[in-house]
């Protein structure tokens, strides 16, 4: 059968097929009528909730706020990671210090810092930022340091031979050479912080009328608007997929795949 063959050969069609099966199972369970709409809503009402929250602008606003928070945290976190890693490369003593604090803090989940963040900054943006920066900075430092250590000696010497020194050598040779590691660091940082963000928002809620997707979920659950909870979950999943499988995959394709630094992925 040509259609079946097409579906089994194409990765996207294959995945769509699995998703369709999952949705079918969902809808079947709902249709048995054993569960209340408040616990397991109809797919149609989730869809209506999604369309409604998008058209009223609520979903867009909440998503934008979450993305704004994570963008800000990524900027602060990568800046700090860059400074710490650069200083660690200049001084062996400082390298020991960075290694120690990274070892201490990396295993600590961001959400575990919530009570401390509350004590220090109270409810609000700064508390969430502290947690996000924490979940961004350590994986980034770890990966960047490993990357810098794995830079080819020959390429470093070629750089010095051309006349590059100090920061210029770092930015022109070490960073691109360590880029596969740095990118991995960013991937881990992103997924850590995206997960922490949703959790933190649920606990902190909104400050000054603002709130992100996590807060939206919490609010809707409070009012027993279950379809809206699922609609928000859907958006969270969608953004996760978009960033991890589209944006990062594209960056990878433009850089380390193009440069032959990693083996091309199979289709």
């Amino acid at each position, binding site marked *: 059968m040509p259609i079946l063959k097409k579906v089994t050969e194409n990765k996207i069609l294959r995945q769509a097929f699995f998703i369709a099966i999952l949705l079918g199972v969902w809808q079947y369970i709902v249709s048995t009528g054993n569960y209340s709409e408040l616990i397991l809503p109809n797919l149609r009402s989730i869809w209506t909730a999604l369309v409604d929250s998008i058209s009223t602008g609520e979903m867009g606003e909440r998503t934008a706020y979450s993305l704004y928070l994570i963008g800000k945290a990524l900027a602060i976190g990568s800046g700090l990671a860059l400074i710490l890693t650069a200083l660690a490369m200049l001084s062996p003593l400082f390298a020991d210090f960075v290694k120690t604090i990274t070892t201490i803090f990396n295993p600590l989940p961001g959400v575990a810092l919530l009570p401390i963040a509350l004590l220090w900054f109270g409810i609000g943006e700064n508390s969430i930022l502290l947690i996000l920066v924490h979940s961004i900075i350590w994986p980034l430092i770890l990966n960047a340091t490993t990357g810098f250590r794995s830079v080819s000696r*020959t390429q470093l*010497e070629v750089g010095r031979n*051309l006349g590059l020194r100090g920061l210029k050598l770092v930015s022109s040779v070490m960073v*691109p050479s360590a880029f596969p590691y740095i990118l991995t660091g960013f991937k881990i940082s992103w997924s850590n912080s995206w997960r922490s963000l949703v959790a933190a928002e649920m606990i902190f809620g909104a400050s000054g009328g603002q709130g992100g997707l996590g807060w939206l979920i919490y609010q809707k659950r409070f009012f027993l608007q279950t379809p809206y909870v699922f609609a928000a979950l859907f958006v969270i999943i969608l953004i996760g997929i978009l960033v991890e499988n589209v944006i990062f995959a594209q960056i990878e394709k433009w850089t380390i795949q193009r440069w032959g*630094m990693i083996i091309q992925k199979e289709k």
Partner: protein
Amino acid sequence: MADKVLIENLFVKFEGEQGNIQALEDISFSVKEGEFLTILGPSGCGKSTLIRSIAGFQKPEKGRILLGKRQVHEPGPDRIMVFQEFDQLFPWKTVKSNITYALKVNGKGKEERERMAAHYLEMVNLQDFGGAFPHQLSGGMKQRAAIARSLALNPEILLMDEPFGSLDAQTRAVLQSELVRLWQKVGSTIIFITHNIQEAILLGDRVMVMSSAPGRIKDIVDVNIARPRLPETPEFMALWHTLYGLLETKRFGENGKNNTMPGKD
């Protein structure tokens, strides 16, 4: 002609966990402007250490390295090194940008960079591969691109550390004759490291033979054979045997010492 490079009483010592190793002991020689000097020695004789010292990557224990009248202490674009490793091109730049970037670092304007890159790519027969990334090239092509990049910088001396050492025999032979052709055309001064006797004779105006543990100069032999040189000619074979003899005494140790040395060489 004037001396381009002058090495005076060079000593290099490695401090290791099992004690210190004298890698080079009292090395003195000079290279004339436009001369092609090959340095021949077995693994571990310190020939790589010697060329790395000239490049400025290795700090000597004592002695002087003079380039013209200047003493050199650190790496610089006046002495460009071509390595044996295939990863010496920056993988994140195309073949052409590898050259234009090197020129940019050394203050060349945009138009000149483009022009020179095209010129040198053509010189090494890579004009069709300027837009390729290094990982798309074969080992031989990578080495040719690295040579093009080095020549484009117009260094006072070209240092070549077994650049053809990892290539298959055919590619190696092709690149050897190409290098001689380039050298005759450009007139650069070259120090070329090898452990291959035939390569040393094919390329060099003179062959400097080294002995190991500690690394010393065994002899410097003139190659009075007209180019292009053919290995099957009697004078080539005679010189081959002379050099082989020089290496041989060393290989079994003049005083029963073992020739182990750290490093890749």
